[in-house]
């Protein structure tokens, strides 16, 4: 049963739009799946390989701008940005990795955070290529209906999921975990830590970049403040994985459901006004305090709570 769970969930997700969801529900679903894909990509580097990145907006943004620039400068369909972003973001990650992977722990985190910001400021200032702060507006999006977008992002997310699962269950995955647990010990066992960290970074970056390229196509408008946002992209990515469960296959999906779907639900409670942010914030704090390993990571704990409650109810 457990073996087929990914396929079952994929099947459910692929027939979900056919039951006639409104375009609004589709929009939220698309965002959930997009964020799940980004979360999975982050999880590869941050969760399995232990390199906590605070700058995934850099990859997301470079991917988004790959698409955007194709359209803006060359007049090519921005969809080509999705395959092309794999190449561009991988190369970009390679260069970035050369700089930041020399650092460890908090220094790595800070360096990646800075990289995200550096990319934003750079994009703002090379206006001839990126349109600067005016951003890039795609005049006509490909489809009005959301089916196309949904299946494309579902394909990306499913691809990301199976790729990461395959990787983690291979030798490479064990190397990653070894590096996370103790880099020096891993090195003394003969693992080329620099090489494997670079591989993790490039893969994680490229997968995030594809989601970024998708974002350009889907939203039709990008500017440096939107796609290189420290809080709205980098931190949200980390929150998705933390809430869902670090180094778990399903954590990012669960996290994305909470961070996008639940946030939207709370936002639309009538009469709450601006307090929705507070309520959502409190909810996140509660999750982090009681489930430090995330919802999927601490699933056993959650099950226990319900099991303990069950007999009490019978007594009543």
């Amino acid at each position, binding site marked *: 049963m457990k073996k087929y769970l990914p396929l079952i969930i994929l099947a459910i997700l692929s027939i979900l739009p056919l039951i006639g969801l*409104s*375009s*609004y*529900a589709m*929009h*939220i679903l698309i*965002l959930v799946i997009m964020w799940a894909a980004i979360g999975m990509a982050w999880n590869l580097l941050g969760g399995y390989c232990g390199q906590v990145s605070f700058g995934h907006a850099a990859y997301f943004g470079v991917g988004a701008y790959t698409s955007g620039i194709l359209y803006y400068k060359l007049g090519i369909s921005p969809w080509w940005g999705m395959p092309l972003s794999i190449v561009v973001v991988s190369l970009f990650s390679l260069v970035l990795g050369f700089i930041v992977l020399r650092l460890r722990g908090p220094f790595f985190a800070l360096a990646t955070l800075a990289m995200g910001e550096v990319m934003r*400021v750079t994009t*703002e*200032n090379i206006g001839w290529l990126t349109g*600067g*702060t*005016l*951003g890039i*507006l795609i*005049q006509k*999006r490909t489809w*009005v209906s959301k089916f196309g977008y949904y299946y494309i992002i579902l394909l990306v997310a499913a691809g990301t999921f199976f790729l990461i699962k395959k990787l983690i269950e291979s030798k490479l995955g064990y190397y990653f975990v070894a590096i996370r647990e103790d880099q020096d010990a891993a090195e003394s066992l003969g693992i080329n830590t620099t090489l494997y960290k670079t591989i993790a970074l490039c893969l994680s970056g490229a997968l995030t970049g594809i989601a970024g390229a998708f974002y350009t196509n889907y*939203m*039709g*408008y990008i*500017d*440096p*403040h*939107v796609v290189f946002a420290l809080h*709205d992209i980098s931190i949200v990515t980390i929150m998705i994985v933390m809430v869902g469960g670090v180094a778990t296959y399903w954590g990012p999906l669960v996290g994305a459901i909470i961070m996008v779907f639940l946030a*939207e*639900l709370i*936002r*639309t*409670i*009538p*009469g709450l*006004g*601006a307090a*929705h*942010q507070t309520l959502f914030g409190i909810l996140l704090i509660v999750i982090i305090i009681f489930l430090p390993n995330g919802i999927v990571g601490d699933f056993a704990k959650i099950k226990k*709570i*319900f099991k303990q*409650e069950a007999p009490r109810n019978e007594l009543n």
Partner: protein
Amino acid sequence: MKRLSMLMIMMFTVGILAGNLFADDTLELSIPLPLTGSQAKFGEMEKYSYIIAADEINARGGIKGKKIVLSFEDGQGKPEVSRSIVEKLIDVDKQQVIIGDYSSACSKAIAAVANERKVPYLVVTGADDAITQQNYDYVFRMNPSNAYYAAGLISFLKQVVKPVSIAILYESSDFGTSGANDMEKQALEMGMKVLVKEKYEKGAVDFKPILTRVKAEKPDVIYMVSYVMDASLLMKQLKELRIDAKLFAGGAAGFAIPEFVNNAKDAAEYVVTATLWSPQAKYPGAKEFAEKYKSKYGDYPSYHGAEAYSAIYILEDVLKRAKTWNAEDIRAAMKATDMVTAFGPIKFEDKAGYQNQNFMDTLVMQVIKGNHETIWPESYASAKYLFPIPSWRSRK
């Protein structure tokens, strides 16, 4: 645990029911606005203004007998959240017309959706030129595009200040950039030298490196485009560094709202700013709206408030003329709009590369004795402009 989830479910159900209770004799209108985040100040002012307008119309019996029921959804200044809101309004609430949001980025996200789904969208404050240059048939804009924001200020410069050089400082946003680019173009046309054109990160706390450069170049006019905090900080630091110029000028937004004077205190004195509207503007209802706003919320509204207030009146006018209240007829009625609101004349025209764009005179205000006074064009003036302005050293 269980009780908590029960409570949550109850809350949701009550919420949904409450939403459906008043369905018949009312016109429900949800407006996306930034109510949290860095643009919340503007969102709040617009929210209050929408409410004042709706209350006035309801007091007169509503639109065709239907009372307006407003609700506001927080877009947080994020384009994808604004888009979520609008997708929901169109799909779930079946709202036939969209108005609102504040920033250019959010307005662009909404405009694209509205046009795809063929629901008319009235842009209230998004200023980036591009919004009405996309062949969007369903997007209407009541505020002039950014290229026209400084038109009044430029005529003031031409006729009164007659500068030969200018320094342009602007924040790194689409509003700041397009405002600065337009000013640069106009300045070059007037034969001015652009000595400095420098961008800064919005929310910066220290402008001294840029300002030192400005000081060395000694421009006649220092023109700045920024939101609230940056505007007052810039003026304070200009004062601290004793940088004198013939004129300090702001490009609307942060310079044109009352917070600017409150925050910058005496450094704000004599600063002129482009604006689309002022409480002294001689449009019917402008003064009444400004006074009403002040008595309720303690300060005069800026042009953002007037735009929001008038947007409801435009909607009233459009809905009165529309044959039915579905999107197509509302669009047709909106296209034929020709009215004067508290914000100014509204007419959606296709010209100069724009589509469904309102064109109007823009004003210049100057801070005189701690108040924003309209000084230009002279036919709108509430006070005589003070020029030349004294140097920092000779003030008190």
